[in-house]
């Protein structure tokens, strides 16, 4: 009986190739849409998360003022940190890997005829540790350069390219804010930040040089801290907050006038956002699966007259109700699984290509493949089987007379 049903089902599929392929197409589109959207969405999430964690997930950022300002956010009125604050943190708090005070100033960098406006960051070698930023060429600051406030700089790759093109920048002399600086190193390319800013558009100079020769004060705008592996970031953050409250004479009742930011919080917020986006894409895709399902339903309903007569003929020739239904079930299962499998293959190749083009990692999610397959097969079966069930319950003569 099953063999007969399979035979008859395959014959019907072959005979009505147009109807069959349209049915399968509805499923192909639905399944492919879901898988492509979810795959690319999770790829994007993974990319963003990875980018953010490349900022250093064991990093704390300490700055005066309250609230979280993004880059270029509003300056606070709270008093700035001093170099001594960074020194106190390094001295008094345990479990830290590196502490880097920093102050920034935007300025023109000039070499020969080339002119580029960039950001100079006055800091120490610890900055390279905290930001996990290796030197591509040349060397770090020497002790004497740091203590003596020498006019030396380490360039980010963007600045290096803009000023020197293909030339070797090492030991060349460039001008920053009208002062001559010797280039002693070139940083490795870090790429764009999650916020879309160019992190390589930077020139590092010793903090003391910036203070003495450029700003004229001893303010520190941000202190970067990295925590040793295995040490609780939470604890380090609490300790730093306590120390800073003490040093800035903040009484029990007053709020902090500084801010210790944990990079993991940003990671959480941003990957949460992309996850929401992936969910949204998934929802859009689910709608397209539904639309595919409605397409299938339409085809089924349009062909219902013809199929009702077919059922009438089969019943008249002595087919049992359950034999007719089994045939229709097999038809629906074959068409929708075929559509599902083609949809999955199409979706996986398309996502593979698109992930290459969009530069996001290709993340194969077996769960979504499984769910969309099951859903589409269910849609195919429901819309293929239930109209048939109704027809198979008619008297043969009624089914034959169906208009």
């Amino acid at each position, binding site marked *: 009986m099953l063999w*007969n049903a399979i*035979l*008859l089902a395959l*014959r019907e599929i072959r*005979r*009505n190739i147009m109807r069959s392929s349209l049915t399968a197409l509805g499923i192909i589109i639905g399944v492919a849409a879901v898988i492509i959207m979810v795959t690319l969405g999770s790829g994007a999430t993974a990319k963003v998360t990875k980018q953010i964690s490349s900022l250093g997930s064991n990093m704390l950022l300490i700055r005066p003022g309250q609230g979280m300002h993004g880059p270029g956010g509003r300056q606070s009125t709270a008093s700035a940190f001093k170099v001594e604050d960074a020194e106190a943190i390094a001295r008094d708090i345990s479990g830290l890997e590196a502490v880097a005070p920093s102050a920034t100033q935007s300025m023109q960098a000039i070499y020969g005829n080339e002119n580029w406006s960039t950001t100079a960051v006055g800091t120490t070698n610890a900055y390279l540790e905290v930001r996990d930023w290796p030197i591509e060429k040349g060397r770090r600051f020497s002790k004497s350069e740091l203590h003596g406030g020498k006019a030396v700089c380490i360039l980010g790759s963007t600045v290096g390219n803009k000023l020197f093109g293909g030339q070797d920048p090492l030991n060349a002399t460039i001008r920053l804010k009208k002062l001559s600086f010797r280039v002693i190193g070139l940083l490795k390319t870090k790429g764009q930040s999650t916020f879309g800013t160019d992190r390589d558009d930077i020139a590092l100079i010793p903090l003391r040089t910036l203070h003495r020769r450029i700003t004229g004060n001893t303010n520190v705008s941000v202190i970067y801290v990295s925590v040793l592996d295995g040490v609780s970031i939470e604890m380090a953050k609490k300790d730093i907050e306590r120390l800073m409250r003490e040093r800035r004479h903040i009484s029990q009742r007053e709020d902090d006038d500084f801010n210790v930011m944990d990079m993991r919080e940003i990671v959480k917020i941003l990957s949460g956002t992309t996850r929401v986006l992936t969910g949204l894409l998934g929802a859009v895709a689910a709608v397209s699966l539904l639309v595919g399902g409605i397409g299938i339903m339409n085809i089924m309903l349009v062909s219902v007259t013809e199929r009702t*007569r*077919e059922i*009438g*003929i*089969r*019943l*008249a*020739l*002595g*087919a*049992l*109700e*359950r*034999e007719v239904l089994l045939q229709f079930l097999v038809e629906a299962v074959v068409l929708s699984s075929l559509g599902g499998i083609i949809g999955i293959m199409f979706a996986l190749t398309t996502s593979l290509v698109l992930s290459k083009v969009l530069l996001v990692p290709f993340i194969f999610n077996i769960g979504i493949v499984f769910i969309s397959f099951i859903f589409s097969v269910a849609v195919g079966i429901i819309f293929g089987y239930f109209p048939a069930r109704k027809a198979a319950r008619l*008297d*043969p*003569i009624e089914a*034959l007379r169906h208009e």
Partner: protein
Amino acid sequence: MKAISKISGRPLIEIKDVSKVYGQGQAVMHALRGINLQITNGDFVAVMGPSGSGKSTCLNILGCLDTPTLGTYLFMGIDVGKLTRNQRALLRRHYLGFVFQNYNLLKRTSSIENVELPLIYRGLPAAERHAYSLNALKAVGLKGWEHHTAGELSGGQQQRVAIARAIVTEPTVLLADEPTGNLDSERSRETIELLARFNRDKGITIVMVTHETDMASYAKRSINFIDGLIVNDKLQETS
């Protein structure tokens, strides 16, 4: 299956006070108004009568395709009205062959696959199915048309595919609703002779609706319907 009809002394087909009513209220239509009919095994009955007199309705009931509104139908002594849908389907499968007035073929399906269909439901293996179907198509003069779909055939050719489909199972009873309605006189004669041969050589009982008296003259018995009633039932000399 033949055994059942042999042992029983009763007629193969027995209809008692059968009426069929379509619609209700104003639109009520009495297609059959209480008919009685007995057909014995091996008979060849021609059913005649004006259009709308209830011939097809009666044949559908005999073929277990439809159920009477009132009255009983005994087929081989079995009260069909008491059977389930599946049991009636099995009667159709094993004992009945039906040629519809409007053929009722699967349009996009080849002639041979149309003819094979009742054999598939009987569970015959593919090779036998194929051989029997080829034979039946040959018998109705459609050799060489096996792989044309029903939709590609002329009305007369479709009618002959429908006849082949009905005779391929060699049913106990063959019910044919105007089987020559679309055939030219030459084809009509060939077809009716084929049916007569079937009746004579294989003992297949035939009930055939026809409008033409010379077709009816091949039958052993003719019945006349008028307005849902049997008005004339006579035995006749076969030519």
